[in-house]
């Protein structure tokens, strides 16, 4: 039966069909669903790891043990896992090992727009890039074969539009060749200088072998399609689809399914056949630079942008000079930025922080939205875990700061890389106050379990890290737990932590309001007779509250009865 596969779902199907046995990942948009779908196959041991570095090392260990293995992450996750990546490239694999990295051009849900292709080049690791769901499935299977053929991990690079688009993909049966025998081999697996020097020679030869393979089309991964030769397009991934849509048969295409290493002669020969050659690639001038290195004259970032997503109309405009016709409504289109959901437990916490007028070192998660107005209570956001370590840095530079500043970090992010920063606070002794926003789930990426939730990826009971015990074990004696639905208690708890000597951890504990297991109160209503139109209830920025005809009004379709707004109403008008 034909079925529309999400790109990420097709990768998971590819894992299944390729006989993959171990999958370990940390969630991150737009890569998350690969591992969620993989976990639906009983034949695959799947897990959420505490972070991407752990996940990649698990995949490495499984490969050495003889199982085809896999890990997935978003682009910034590969920064975390870069350490094992660069050396796994030297050791190579036993059974096939595949790494998926999902870039986010346009930053739909990311803090930067980095281009992961540089990691393939930097770590000298083969990288494939599919352009639709059928290729997601096919390239995943291919990646395992290539991993074993060339004795290397293989990276699959997706971008958001491939990961989160649905298209048809044909399926086949699973082929599982069982565990490959492990043979002790220190020269291969123990990367001390003497062994690594020899392995580097192997890696460089491997790249030459891979280039030769790519020159010959890489078994159909690199393809040439000649139509009109007036325009030649060298491209890969989703940009191939955009170019086809915009230019159709008015252009010829060199589609690169393998983006590292890149062929040389194949590109030269294609360029020689075409009058004007464009390189169409989102983000950096990666393919373009390669072309120029070998003297191939192409038009790339001189005409196209380094920023954001491309589209068929962008390509039509740049190459054909075509402008789209469209209509426009003559009204003030008010922006609609993302907000904390109605009933979100983070709202009460941020309101308490606002009342305390503190500086807030922020982190990555739904609660990053606490930066936006009317709460406006986050001062910095850098990367996973940085809230804790950066707060320590601020307090080291300015000890007075410690009494009027806090870090906020979610439960999953804390386990990912906040705990190391907390150990640093305890060890190097600043009076820092770290607030762990424990909503019992990894929220932003769509509700994944983590080591604090007491459940594994399949929802089965699992060990739960006690945040209180962990904080105490690393040397934080002052641990305070508050319920962020209770504004007075939350404010008082944080105040105590700030005033006490020594570092403190405040755990703001309340499950995500969107969790299916969470029971809600009936929606609240505003008693219009009691409402004095003071707008106090609007100060928390709840999307369910609005002013209609001069009185506050609560949208019954959104309100979850959290009662945070009613604690602000001095007139008891919210019932």
């Amino acid at each position, binding site marked *: 039966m034909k079925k529309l596969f999400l790109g990420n779902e097709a990768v998971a199907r590819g894992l299944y069909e390729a006989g993959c046995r171990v999958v370990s990942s940390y969630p991150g948009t737009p890569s998350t669903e690969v591992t969620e779908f993989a976990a639906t196959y009983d034949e695959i041991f799947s897990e959420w790891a505490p972070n991407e570095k752990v996940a990649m090392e698990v995949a490495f260990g499984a490969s050495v043990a003889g199982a085809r293995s896999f890990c997935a992450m978003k682009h910034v996750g590969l920064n975390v896992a870069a350490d094992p990546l660069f050396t796994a490239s030297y050791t190579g694999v036993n059974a096939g090992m595949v790494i998926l990295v999902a870039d986010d051009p346009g930053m739909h849900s990311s803090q930067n727009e980095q281009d992961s292709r540089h990691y393939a080049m930097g770590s000298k690791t083969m990288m494939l890039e599919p352009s639709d769901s059928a290729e997601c499935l096919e390239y995943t299977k291919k990646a395992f074969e290539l991993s074993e053929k060339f004795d290397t991990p293989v990276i699959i690079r997706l971008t958001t*539009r491939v990961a989160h688009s649905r298209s*048809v993909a044909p399926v086949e049966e699973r082929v599982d060749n069982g565990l490959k025998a492990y043979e002790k081999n220190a020269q291969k697996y123990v990367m001390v200088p003497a062994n690594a020097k020899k392995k580097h020679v192997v890696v460089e030869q491997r790249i030459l072998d891979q280039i030769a393979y790519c020159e010959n089309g890489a078994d159909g991964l690199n393809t040439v399609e000649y139509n009109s030769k007036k325009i030649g397009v060298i491209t890969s991934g989703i940009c191939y689809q955009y170019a086809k849509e915009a230019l159709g048969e008015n252009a010829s295409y060199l589609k690169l399914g393998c983006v590292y290493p890149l062929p040389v002669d194949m590109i030269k020969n294609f360029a020689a056949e075409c009058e004007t050659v464009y390189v169409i690639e989102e983000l950096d001038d990666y393919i373009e630079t390669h072309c120029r290195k070998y003297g191939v004259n192409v038009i790339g970032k001189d005409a196209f942008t380094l920023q954001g997503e491309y589209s068929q109309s962008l390509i039509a405009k740049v190459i054909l000079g075509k402008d789209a016709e469209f209509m426009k409504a003559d009204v003030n289109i008010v922006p609609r930025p993302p907000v904390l959901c109605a009933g979100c437990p983070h709202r009460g916490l941020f309101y308490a922080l606002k009342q305390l007028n503190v500086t807030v070192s922020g982190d990555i998660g739904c609660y990053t939205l606490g930066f936006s107005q009317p709460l406006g209570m986050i001062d910095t956001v850098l990367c996973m875990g940085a809230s804790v370590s950066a707060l320590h840095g601020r307090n080291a530079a300015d000890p007075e700061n410690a009494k009027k500043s806090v870090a906020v970090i979610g439960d999953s992010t804390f386990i990912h890389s906040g705990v190391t920063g907390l150990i640093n606070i305890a060890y190097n002794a600043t009076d820092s106050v770290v607030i762990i926003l424990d909503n019992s789930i990894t929220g932003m990426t769509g509700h994944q379990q983590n080591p604090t939730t007491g459940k594994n990826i399949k929802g089965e009971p699992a060990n739960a890290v006690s945040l209180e015990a962990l904080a105490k074990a690393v040397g934080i004696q002052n641990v305070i737990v508050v319920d962020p639905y209770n504004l007075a208690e939350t404010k008082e708890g944080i105040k105590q932590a700030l005033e006490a000597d020594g570092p403190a951890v405040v755990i703001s504990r309340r499950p995500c309001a969107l969790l299916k297991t969470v029971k809600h109160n009936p929606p609240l209503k505003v008693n219009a007779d009691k409402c004095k139109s003071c707008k106090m209830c609007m100060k928390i920025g709840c999307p369910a509250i609005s002013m209609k005809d001069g009185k506050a009004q609560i949208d*019954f379709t959104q309100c979850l009865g959290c009662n945070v707004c009613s604690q602000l109403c001095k007139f008891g008008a919210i019932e």
Partner: protein
Amino acid sequence: MNKSIMIVGVGGQGTLLASRILGAALLDCGYDVKVSEVHGMSQRGGSVVTYVRWGEKVASPIIEKGEADIILAFEQLEAARWLEYLKPDGKIIVNTQQMDPMPVVMGAAEYPEGVIDAIRAAGADVETLDALPMAVEAGTAKAVNVVLIGAMAKNMADVDKEVWLKALRESVPAKFLDLNLKAFEMGYNN
């Protein structure tokens, strides 16, 4: 010739389910189909858009300005926001429900008056319906998306009603099927 539908709304309104049902129905009719979705940060009460494209062979999964044959808007302001994406001879179906964006909640901006009139004045073929009370009548406010799927189905001559019902049956949990079928009919017969 390929065709395109954009489904636009506010994160949490159920636009993803609508695009999945549409995708399944079109695939069942034998078309090549591509659907592009928004996940993650953009879903948290922000403006969201999903693209559905179909035809003999579809390359790009996204829709650009002036390219959509139909826009299905779950909310008025979102209809105005995405109107630029409608083909000059396209049709826009608008749920007249209003949801205040944060600048309006904060009092920094006013929700614009006369949105539907402005869309009509821009030259668009507009159909409106008030889907929220219909969904409530069908059994739950959450079924707004299914009422709107019904309204979209009525405007798509190339897909039989039976195909829609089959796609709906395969996409919603069995215990909510009757409620959703009722919601669909209300949108379809609107």
